[in-house]
C-alpha cells in the first residue's frame, strides 16, 4: 500500500516529472527481463543512486513483471531471431568466449529479447511517462479534486493516512 500511496503523493506533488518517468522506465527493464539476471543488479543500483522516484520504480516493476508473462513468447521469438541470425554469429560467438557476457545470460532467448525491447523502449517510455505526469497534473488533477467522490474520500481514514504521509 505504501508505494502506491507514495506514487499518488508524487503525482500530486511538485516532484519532478523526469524523476517519476525515469523510475517508471527503469522498472520496465527490471520488470520485462528475467529477475535473476546480472544486469538487473545494475538497474537496481541505478535506481538507488540516481534520484529517480523509487516508489514509482517499485510499483511499475510489479506492473511490468505482470506484463512480461504475456509478452514472454514475443521476447523469446525476438531473442531467438537475433541469436540465430547468421550475420550476427561472429558477434555472439565472441561474446560467448567471455565469462562476463555469459554471466549476463545474453545467450538466453527471453533475456536477450526482453532486454533489447526494454532498452529500445526506455527513452520512448520515459517520454510517455513524463507526458502522462504533466498532462495529469494540468488537466486531470483539478478535475479530480472537484469530483464529489473525491470530496467524500477526503473525509475517510484513507485520506487521513495520505495526509499523514504528505507531512
Amino acid at each position, binding site marked *: 500500500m505504501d508505494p502506491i500511496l507514495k506514487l499518488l503523493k508524487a503525482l500530486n506533488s511538485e516532484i519532478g516529472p523526469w524523476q517519476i518517468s525515469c523510475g517508471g522506465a527503469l522498472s520496465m527493464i527490471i520488470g520485462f527481463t528475467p529477475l535473476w539476471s546480472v544486469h538487473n543488479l545494475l538497474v537496481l543500483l541505478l535506481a538507488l543512486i540516481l534520484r529517480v522516484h523509487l516508489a514509482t520504480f517499485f510499483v511499475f516493476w510489479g506492473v511490468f513483471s505482470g506484463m512480461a508473462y504475456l509478452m514472454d513468447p514475443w521476447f*523469446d521469438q525476438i531473442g531467438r531471431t537475433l541469436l540465430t541470425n547468421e550475420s550476427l554469429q561472429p558477434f555472439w560467438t565472441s561474446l560467448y568466449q567471455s565469462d562476463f557476457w555469459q554471466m549476463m545470460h545474453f545467450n538466453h532467448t*527471453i533475456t536477450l529479447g526482453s532486454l533489447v525491447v526494454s532498452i529500445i523502449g526506455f527513452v520512448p517510455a520515459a517520454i510517455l511517462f513524463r507526458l502522462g505526469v504533466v498532462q495529469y497534473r494540468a488537466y486531470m488533477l483539478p478535475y479530480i479534486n472537484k469530483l464529489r467522490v473525491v470530496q467524500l474520500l477526503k473525509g475517510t481514514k484513507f485520506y487521513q493516512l495520505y495526509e499523514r504521509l504528505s507531512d
Partner: protein
Amino acid sequence: MKLFRWGGLIGFVVIVALIGVIGFFFIDDWAKKGIEVSGFQVNQAEVDVGSVRLSLNPIGFELSNIQIADPDKPTHDSVLLERINLEVNLPQLFLGNVRIHDVTVAGVQSDVKRANIARVMEKKPADETATAPTTKDKVEEKAAALVNQLPTPKEAVLAQVQNTQTAVKNAEQTISDSKQAVESSITKLPTDDDLASYKKRIAEIKQIELDSLENIKKSTDLLGSVSKDVATDKLAIETVKRSVNNAVRDSKNAVTDIAKAPGQDWQALKEKYPLNKDTALKVARRLLGDNFFVRIDQAKGWYEKARPWLARLKSSEDENAPERLAGEYIRFPHPDPTAAFQLDHGKVSFTADNWPWLLTINDLTSHRGDFFKPTHLLLQRGTTDNAALKITGLLDRVDGKNLDTFEFSGRGIDFSSQSAELAGTTLKWVPEKADVSGKITSTAGQLNGKVSLMFPQNNLTASGSGATAGYLARAVQKVKTFQIDIAVSGTLLKPNLQLTSDLDNQLSDALAGIAKAEYESWLADARTQLDDEVQRLRKPADEALNTLERRRTEVEERIQRFETEVEQEVRSLENKVKTEQKRLQDRIAAEKKAAEEAAKKAAQDKAKEGLGNLKDKIGF
C-alpha cells in the same frame, strides 16, 4: 537538483555485502539441508549428510558420511559414501552452471545397516500394484514349456492310435452293414426244397416218351413252366450276386483303410516326439538362462534406483528456470564449453566381491552436442596394471543423435554354480572363471551389440535315474569349453537380450549322436508296439471280413448247385425236346410226302389205264 543519491549507493553495497557474508557462513548448512531435502524427494527415502564443508582453495565442498537409505528396506542404506570431494568452478556457479572440475568419491559401501530406521515417503497405491513380471519369471514360464520327456513306447502308442482306432471302427461298421445286406439277400435264393421241387418236375418231364407230337407238346409246356420259374430265380440270384460282391468289396476297402491308418498314427507320433536341434538348444537355455537373467534383473534394479537421480540431473536446467516461459540458452562454439551441469573428472573407488573397483568419469555433461566433448566412462575391477574387468564407455552426440558406445573386456569372471531340473534329471554346472569381451552401442536410445563370455573349462554333470539322465549325462560329458554370446537390442529401459551359445551346438551335436541311437531304439519299440496294437485292433474286423467271404462262398456254391442241377438240366431237356420234336416232324413230313407221291402215282396209273381202255374202245 543533485543527480545522484549517494546514500542509495551505500545502502546497495551494504545489502550486497551482507548477503555475501551471510551466504559464506551459512552455505554449508544450506547445502547440507538442500541435499537432504532434495535427496529425500528423489530417493523416496531419507538421505543424510554428515557434514558439508566449504573450501576456498581450491573452491569446492567436502561432504562426508552420505547415507542414502533404501526405500524398500528402511533399516539399511542402499549406499553409504564415506567421503566426497568436489572442486567446483565458482564463476560458472554465478552463470547458473554447475561445473565440477573434479570429484572423488571414496569408501562406497552398499546395503549397510543404519543406526536408526529411515523415513520413507509414502507410496501411491498404484505404485504397489505396478509390479511387472521379472525376466526370471518369464524364463520360468518358458521353462515350463520345455522339452517333452519321452514316455514309454507303449504309453506313446496307446495315446497315439486314434487314426487306427477310427479306421477299425469304420471297418467294423461297414462289415456289419455288409453282413446284414448279404443275409437279407440270401433269403431270396432258391432253397433246398425249391431245388428238390425243380428236380422232381424235371424227372417227370424226363419220363414222358418223346415219340409223339402230343408228348412233345406236353413236355414243352412243362419245360416252359419250369424255365419261367428258373428265370425268376435266376434274376434273384443275379441281384444276390451283385449285393454280395458289393458288400465284400466295401468291407475289403474298409479293411484296406485300416492298413493305412497306422502310417498316419506313426507320423503323428514322430511329430509329437521329435528330436532335433531346437530341443537341444532349449536344454542349453534351460541350463544357463536363470543365471544370466537374474544378473540382468539385478542390473535393472540398480538402474531403476539410479534413474530418478539421473532424471533430476538432466532436468536441472528446467528447475532453475522461473515460472515464466523457460526460453532457451543458445550455445556457440567455445574452446571449453560448460553445460548446466558438467563434471570434468570424477573418480569413485570401492571394494566389492573382495576386489577393488574404480569408476572414472570424464566430461559428463547434462547437455550433449557438437560444442561439447564426449563423455568417457571407465569401470575397472582390479588395479590398472592388473585389471580383471574393464568396461569403457563413450557417450557422444553425432548428427543430433546420442551415440553411446560401451566396450567390455575382462578375464577370470566368477560365475556361481547353477543347477536345473530337467526331465527328472539334475543338471549341475560348476563353471571355471570366464573371459568376457564385447561392444554395445546405443544410438538414440536403441541398443545394438554383442557381449561374449568364454568359459575355458566347465564341469557339467547330469544326475538322476532313468534313461534321460544317462542320456544327458553322456551328452554333457562331451562339452569341455564353450562360449556364450549375448546379443543386445531394444532400448535402454527395455533391453532385449538374445542368448546364443556354441554350447547349444556342442550339446546339440552330442545329443544328436547319443540321442539318435536312443531315439531310434525308442522308435523301433514304438513301431513294434504300434504294429501289435494295430493287429489287436484290426483282428475283429479281419475275422468279420473272413466270415463275410465264407458266406459269399456258400452263396456262390448254392448258386452253382442251382445252375448245375436245375438250369443246365432244364436247358438240356429243352434241347432234347426240340431235337425229338424236329425229328418227329421231319419223319411225319417224309411219310406225308411218300404217301402223296404214292397216291399221285396210283392216280396216274389209273388215268393211264383208263386212257388205254378208252383207246381200245376208240380203236376198235
